[in-house]
């Protein structure tokens, strides 16, 4: 069953069109990876789906309903959660408050404050500490936990490993594995192709705001993806669709 659909979505940064009429769909339980070089439009696409970047054209459909005109907090209440690039924690608030504020979405489900602390045990000794004082890996765990507090039906994860040490990245992906077991569908933006192939069921490659390739991870090779990543191949599926 298709949970999230994006039709001919366009988004701009001033005069620059960052997302050029993308079609994308995500099935319930599916794990989709978006890959592409810097400036490909991946982050803008996720932010537009989450509602904190305005769509310039096209539609975002969630569970059959058009949510394109809804503000981000209403989309969060429907179950769309974004772990933003750079984590964007509320730095002066404690870790516990960063988690608890996300109950504002008003969604109940399997994720509660206690279950998240259990799933992300590295947070337990840091609950009273200001979120800004944590290491990068711990901050990423807080950002994932905060998104889970909204009990999302789809989780959008933007550049989880950005700026983290290899050890911290491993910790973050261990946390993500715990989350993935819950079966929440997710869209992952990641530069590390090895991890992408490990986590995702399907890969969508973007270049200059368009989809240039997509396929199941079991049917694609890293070399194929790399070719599309750098724009060496342009003949795979119709542009802008996945």
């Amino acid at each position, binding site marked *: 069953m298709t949970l999230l659909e994006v039709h001919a979505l366009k988004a701009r940064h001033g005069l620059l069109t960052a997302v050029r009429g993308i079609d994308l769909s995500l099935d319930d339980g599916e794990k989709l990876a978006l890959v592409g070089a810097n400036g490909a439009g991946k982050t803008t696409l996720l932010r537009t789906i989450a509602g904190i970047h305005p769509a310039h054209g096209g539609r975002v459909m969630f569970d059959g309903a058009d949510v394109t005109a809804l503000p981000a907090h209403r989309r*969060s209440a429907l179950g769309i*959660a974004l772990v933003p690039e750079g984590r964007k924690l509320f730095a002066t608030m404690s870790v516990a408050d960063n988690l608890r504020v996300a109950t504002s979405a008003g969604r109940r489900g399997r994720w509660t404050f206690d279950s998240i602390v259990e799933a992300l045990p590295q947070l337990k000794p840091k609950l009273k500490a200001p979120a800004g004082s944590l290491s990068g890996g711990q901050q990423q765990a807080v950002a994932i936990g905060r998104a889970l507090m909204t009990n999302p039906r789809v989780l959008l994860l933007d550049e989880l490993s950005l700026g983290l040490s290899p050890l911290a990245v491993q910790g973050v992906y261990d946390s993500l594995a715990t989350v993935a077991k819950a079966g929440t569908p997710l869209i992952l933006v990641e530069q590390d192709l090895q991890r992408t192939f490990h986590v995702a069921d399907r890969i969508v490659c973007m270049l200059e705001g368009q989809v240039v390739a997509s396929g199941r991870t079991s049917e694609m090779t890293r070399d194929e993806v790399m070719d599309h990543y750098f724009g060496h191949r342009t003949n795979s599926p119709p542009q802008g669709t996945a």
Partner: protein
Amino acid sequence: MNFLNQVLQGVLLGGYYALLACGLSFMFGVMRIINLAHGSLAVVAAYGVFYLADRHEWHPFAGLVIAVPVMAAVGWLLQRSLLERSARAGELVPILATFGLAVVIDNTLFANFGADTRSLAPFLEELAYGGFNIGPLTLGHLPLLTFGVAVVLLGGLHVMLKHTPLGRRIRAVADDPSTAQLVGVDAMAVNAAAAAIAMATVGVAGVFLAIRATVDPYAGAPQLIFAFEAVMIGGAGSLWGTLAGGIALGVAQSLGASVHTQGFLIAGHVLFLVVLLTRMLLAGRPIMSLFKPAVAR
């Protein structure tokens, strides 16, 4: 001992300044808006309670039961109708908008109530004028009450911000409104709630202003200056800093008044300037940059 007495009176006066300034500090801390109509809105509350006391024989503190929720509603409306829209157009536009609002309020009060000064003190009698001595120190009932109300109000705001769901939402929006929306917080509703809370405190401050002194339609501007100085001395956006700033301003004015009759205002302004310039130096901004044209900075 006279010096100690002057300091004590300054500390108690600082309680009033903190009460007056906490709404200004709260709005700046949450919405980054400097509300230039702050003093005029306090005067509106003072006139409202004076009207209830004078025409309907309400005790001024009973008048607060009406003034506080009405001012909260005014704050909510102000945010949704004026501040929210003007903030979208840039940082300076809300300053101009609230300046215009202050002009409208002041002249509307003048047109309806005339230039006569008014005070709520006669309705309180002993509380407004009475006091007691502890050795050589003199303590007025009203300054003590004002100081106590300021501490309770600031403490209440602190507890609300730290320990309630609304407080967490307000802090999240103050930190990063876009990210707050991502976790389900309606930033516009939270800003409106914060404006309502700020204006409720302005309502309380306005009543204490009219009890401790006289008000006229144009009394808002000097009150805004005192509130602004207290906020800046204590650190913009910090509630307990606002109390400290208010006390510092009050003590400076009280000591200044003991040196010269004009010293009351001058000492407060001098303290404000010294703190401002010191902060600029500590932040690495040369003082001379204040005097360069904006385009050259």
